[in-house]
């Protein structure tokens, strides 16, 4: 398989953190590749480095060593401005704890990536279009009635669906999802996974990390992270 076949590829990723005087080596040469339209799950125990790998894939963090390529382009060679553009337009993040802004209502939270990607003047010209898309996304995740509610007025599942709508706002090429059901009961979590499955069927590329192998089974492909490396690969 050539490099061009993968939308996202990580090669020999190393990452360590300093905790006091000790150095904790989290990733020790992890390799990963995701094809366009794929639903990939990364499983691993707590502390295995799943989230760190996901953050590196999404350019929220930089590896000590190794290369991340997105559509063949090496992210470590990108400027800060290009990385901001990458995070804004190419990827969408969904976090375990939703991370919605409390001061904004549901619709505004969903609109945030669109607002972030443009200045005031640009925003005024495309505001109507952006609002229309945000409302459509909220409708798709079943929250069209909650657009004007504040995050604290929503249930956990509703918050996560808001976070998914936010991640999809700028039509990213890949969704990076970190323990999306970790904070939800099984029924609500199941509903969230159905949303991801639906998105994937529509062509969205999804990379999800989870410690729960049962949840990982919902993905098209599973890879395991142990001792800082991709230990074995499971194709379902």
């Amino acid at each position: 398989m050539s490099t061009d076949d993968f939308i996202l590829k990580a090669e020999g990723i190393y990452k360590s953190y300093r905790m006091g005087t000790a150095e904790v080596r989290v990733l020790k040469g992890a390799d990963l590749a995701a094809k366009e339209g794929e639903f990939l799950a990364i499983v691993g125990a707590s502390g295995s480095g799943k989230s760190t790998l996901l953050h590196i894939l999404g350019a929220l963090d930089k590896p000590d060593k190794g290369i991340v390529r997105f559509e063949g382009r090496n992210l470590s060679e990108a400027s800060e401005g290009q990385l901001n553009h990458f995070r804004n337009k190419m990827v969408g993040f969904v976090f375990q704890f939703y991370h919605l802004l409390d001061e904004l209502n549901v619709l505004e939270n969903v609109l945030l990536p669109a607002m972030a990607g443009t200045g005031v003047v640009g925003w005024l010209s495309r505001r109507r279009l952006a609002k229309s898309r945000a409302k459509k996304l909220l409708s798709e995740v079943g929250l069209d009635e909650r657009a004007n509610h504040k995050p604290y007025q929503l249930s956990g599942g509703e918050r996560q669906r808001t976070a998914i709508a936010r991640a999809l706002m700028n039509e990213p090429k890949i969704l990076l999802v970190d323990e999306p059901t970790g904070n939800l009961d099984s029924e609500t979590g199941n509903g969230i996974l159905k949303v991801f499955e639906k998105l994937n069927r529509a062509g969205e590329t999804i990379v999800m990390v989870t410690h729960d192998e049962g949840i990982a089974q919902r993905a098209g492909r599973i890879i395991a992270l142990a001792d800082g490396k991709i230990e074995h690969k499971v194709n379902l």
Partner: protein
Amino acid sequence: MYKVILPFRYLFKKRISYLALVAVALCVFIVVVVMTVMTGLVRDFKQKNHSFVGDCVVGTESLVGFSYYEDFMKVLEQADFIEGLSAAIKNYALINPKGSQRSVGVEIMGIDPVRHSEATGFGETLHYSKSDVSRTFKPSYDPNLAGCVVGIDLWLGRDAKGQYTYAAKPERQALGVSCFPLTPKGALAKAGAGEVNTKTFYYSDTSHSGLARVDSSFVYLPFEQAQSLCGMDRPVKRASWLHIKFGPNVKPEAGCEKVALLWRQFVRGKGAGLLDTVKVQSWKDYRRPFIAAMEKEQTMLTAMFVLVGVTTVFIVLVVFYMIISHKSKDIGVLKSVGISNSNILLLFLCFAFWVGVFGSAIGAAAGWQFLVHINQIENWLFEHFEFQLWDRTIYAIGDIPNTIDLEVLAVIIVSAIGACLAGALIPSWQAARQKPVEILQVTQL
């Protein structure tokens, strides 16, 4: 757009933001009120000094005075930029109300009331003869007597509201005025003889200039009689000062320079050494010893307000540290959607800007309202608690100055906004430098 929406949301949805707003509003309120009152007092004091002196003076502090003043007055009268011109005798004397054993040391000023009123605001300070200054030295009870005008605080006391109680007409009261006449070279003119000149004048009016030192120590006499009393009528006539008022379109500094030029030309023509002590001064320079003290107080007050500004900066800094530490999750999210470090910095600086704008607007509005009603408030406090900011029986202050200088107000508001931006700069910079992954991972823990 988030840079517009989020700062407003942080401002109005976070209670801690109100703390910064209140701190800024309070500081602006205090500075506006105190600066307005202080600036008003200084401005009022300067206006009164300007009115007392005229635009420019030519003369000498020497008690001997200077000669050839009449010749120079003729030169000045030819100048088209001069509107009013008055010669004055200034000296020290003892006054002794007839029938009393009490003698009081005063400064006497010999003037022609009509000319002096044209050159200065003297006419406006009079009570009985304000409408006809030519009658200033003509006591209403006997116009043939030599009248004198007495500084109001030498003659009348103030009540608790700062008001003087005038009789319907000036009471007949004789004042003995004694002076040491000096020769043109400064020697006592009557050494070995009687030494003093004494003459009796009759109280004809009071002068209320609003300048405490003037009103409590000046007695105004007719020019020729003061000149004679001080021995300045021989062997050549002398005067102490010439008071000059310029035309309406002449700037005092420019006018003074023209007068100084005329004076230098005049002195060259005379070649008189006695004129060396004569100076041409603007009203500000002439009254500098008095004005400078008040200006220094104002400067000191302004310096103290810099400390208030530093306090504001510190409060804003603390509040912003608290806000940003509570908002670290937001910073992580904003970065995850592609917002750059510089835009995070700008976001929080926008927040600080609006804290400054709203805080200073509230403070300025409150200060404005307080100043509009400050005299009513003081009157109410006096009526109910007998409290006065300035004791009107002592200080020559009628109303507390409350005219807001819009330029000063603008400087205060801009400074407050600047203080907010300065206070928020370091926390905002630190917020911008936070790594999203650290914030989001810590939050997850």
